[in-house]
């Protein structure tokens, strides 16, 4: 299970909506409680691809975020990105580029009136939806 604060969901949503139709992206960090993940901080990063169908996290911002996590005692938990016009599920490219099997991959779809956020564990070409709790 992975838990996300409503305020952090709103932060992701607001940024994704402001960036659309460009894909938005960032990192999540927090705490591990056994197999459960608790997101304590969401990071907004630049999509250096500036593309509607691709994203790449800015490596310099990624480094800064990792250092901030260390300084605040947070554990890197994964990343998030938006799908402005497609469903909240990993694309073939998302799966191919998911190199960290311990990470959670959150995908926010804006294709419908109601935004949909899901979190996935990706290993090889298999993606499994994680139980996501927004509170």
């Amino acid at each position: 299970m992975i838990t996300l604060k409503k305020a952090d969901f709103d932060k992701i949503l607001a940024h994704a909506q402001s960036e659309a139709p460009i894909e938005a992206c960032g990192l999540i960090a927090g705490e591990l409680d056994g197999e459960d993940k608790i997101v304590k901080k969401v990071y907004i990063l630049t999509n250096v691809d500036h593309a509607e169908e691709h994203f790449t996290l800015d490596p310099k911002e990624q480094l800064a975020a990792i250092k901030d996590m260390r300084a605040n005692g947070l554990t890197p938990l994964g990343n998030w990105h938006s799908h402005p016009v497609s469903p909240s599920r990993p694309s073939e490219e998302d799966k191919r580029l998911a190199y960290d099997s311990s990470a959670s991959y959150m995908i926010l779809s804006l294709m419908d009136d109601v935004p949909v956020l899901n979190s996935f564990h990706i290993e090889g070409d298999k993606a499994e939806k994680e139980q996501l709790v927004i509170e």
Partner: protein
Amino acid sequence: MIITVAGVKKEVKDGITVAQLVIDENVETPQYVTVTVNDDFVENSQLESTVLHEGDTVEFLYFMGGGQ
């Protein structure tokens, strides 16, 4: 000598290169990892020739990207 790797202080051999550290640390899918030393990004072509020094701080950054 002592260096810091991903936030953890470690003892490594004097004169170790970044390339050797990547091997010793069992970095998964190293072709998709960017290495920084003291916040400077090390080009892949420089991994073999970049020698680490006492007190250096090394981070491994996984490429993170995708597409819809």
